[in-house]
């Protein structure tokens, strides 16, 4: 029976995804290589179609560019509204970070951003850098393939519980497990169009940043995301950060309307290559920095 159930569920997901492909095929030539940089805008209001039930599948673009100023709702732009509720340690960490962007940016030669050595960004920084992603679903999980550096993340939707945060990691069924780049993510459908996701167990503040401007995040963070399917074309992706080690209160980082893109797009991925970084610094970064 379990095998039959799985088969039916996989079939349903396949049909749902196939429908999406066909919807695009009706409007575009069948055999082509679409532009490798998804740039489709949202459909006009009169052309909006209803969202499919419990489906986030598709290729999604944000039109935000590389999010140089950091978190979308509270960019690092010097405005009072964007000042963050740092704890003393949080402020100390921010000041120790030499970012390439934001109000306290430094030239390329002076940065200590782990990104420029091609360290993984870690979660949730992938949400705050060049955001675009392809989302897949099956009966167990939602998988997100971020365009930047082709990095995977898995959200479990099969009813398992959110792990308990403990020092240096998480506890699952009474057993310790280590912190991870993407943490441990569990999703729950609040209704047929809204998936709420909790993530804990991310890497400590010495290893990862929250955004391009050097805002800190610690391994005590609890990240809540809401994926809300507004219509067939639009997925609203929200995120709230609760990190008592770095911030005195939770704050909302983003609420981004993602636009559905042609699923046949073979995306021009922005890979991080140490070879290319070195070549860039040699030809430009060092000289431009006055080094």
């Amino acid at each position, binding site marked *: 029976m379990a095998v039959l159930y799985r088969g039916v569920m996989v079939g349903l997901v396949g049909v749902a995804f196939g429908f999406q492909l066909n919807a695009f095929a009706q409007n575009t030539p069948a055999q082509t290589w679409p532009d490798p940089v998804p740039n489709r805008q949202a459909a006009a209001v009169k052309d909006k179609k209803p969202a499919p039930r419990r489906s986030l599948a598709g290729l999604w673009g944000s039109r935000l560019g590389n999010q*140089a100023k950091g978190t979308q709702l509270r960019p690092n732009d010097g405005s009072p509204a964007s000042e963050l509720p740092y704890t003393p340690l949080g402020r100390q960490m921010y000041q120790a970070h030499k970012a390439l962007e934001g109000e306290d940016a430094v*030239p*390329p030669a002076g940065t200590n951003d782990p990104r420029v050595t091609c360290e993984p960004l870690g979660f949730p920084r992938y949400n705050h850098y060049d955001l675009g992603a392809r989302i897949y679903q099956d009966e167990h999980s939602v998988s997100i393939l971020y365009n930047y550096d082709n990095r995977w993340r898995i959200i479990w939707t099969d009813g398992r519980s959110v792990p308990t945060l403990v020092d240096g990691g998480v506890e699952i069924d009474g057993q310790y497990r280590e912190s991870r780049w993407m943490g441990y993510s569990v999703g729950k459908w609040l209704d047929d169009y809204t998936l709420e996701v909790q993530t804990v167990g991310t890497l400590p503040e010495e290893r990862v940043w929250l955004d391009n401007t050097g805002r800190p995040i610690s391994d005590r963070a609890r990240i809540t995301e809401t994926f809300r399917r507004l219509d067939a074309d639009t997925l609203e992706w929200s995120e709230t950060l609760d990190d008592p080690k770095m911030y005195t209160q939770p704050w909302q980082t983003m609420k981004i309307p993602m636009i559905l893109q042609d699923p046949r797009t073979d995306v021009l991925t922005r890979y991080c290559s140490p070879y*290319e970084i070195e070549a*860039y610094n040699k030809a*430009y970064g060092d000289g*431009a*920095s006055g080094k």
Partner: protein
Amino acid sequence: MRNRLVKAVSVALLLLASAPAGAHHTGSTLLSDTTVTVKGVVKSWLWSNPHCLLTIEVKGADGQVVEWVMEAQAPNSIYPAGYRNNSFKPGDEVTVTANPVTNGRPYGRIESVVLPNGSKLGGEGGGRRGNAAAQ
């Protein structure tokens, strides 16, 4: 390097039109708030992450040639503005408008490029105001 710097400044004074522009790298001291326009011959075009690099040779009124290195955004950022891997080839005559770095050296971030056929690449091409990442 000092010789190169002096040449760069003299070329800038002789050839370049400067105009106010929005600041890039908010809060950073890397890029100037002004733009410069230089006409030169393409030496190389690097289609690469984290940034594409256009190197051009600019001849000054004194006959001296100065090499300018101009950065654009990453390929996936500048593709929508029409930039491609083969947008430039060595020997092409181009006119580049860019935000120069503040230290006076011949480096800058591309705002737009006029190609040999007169067409222009710009907009999202490089100096995308308020949305530029150094790496």
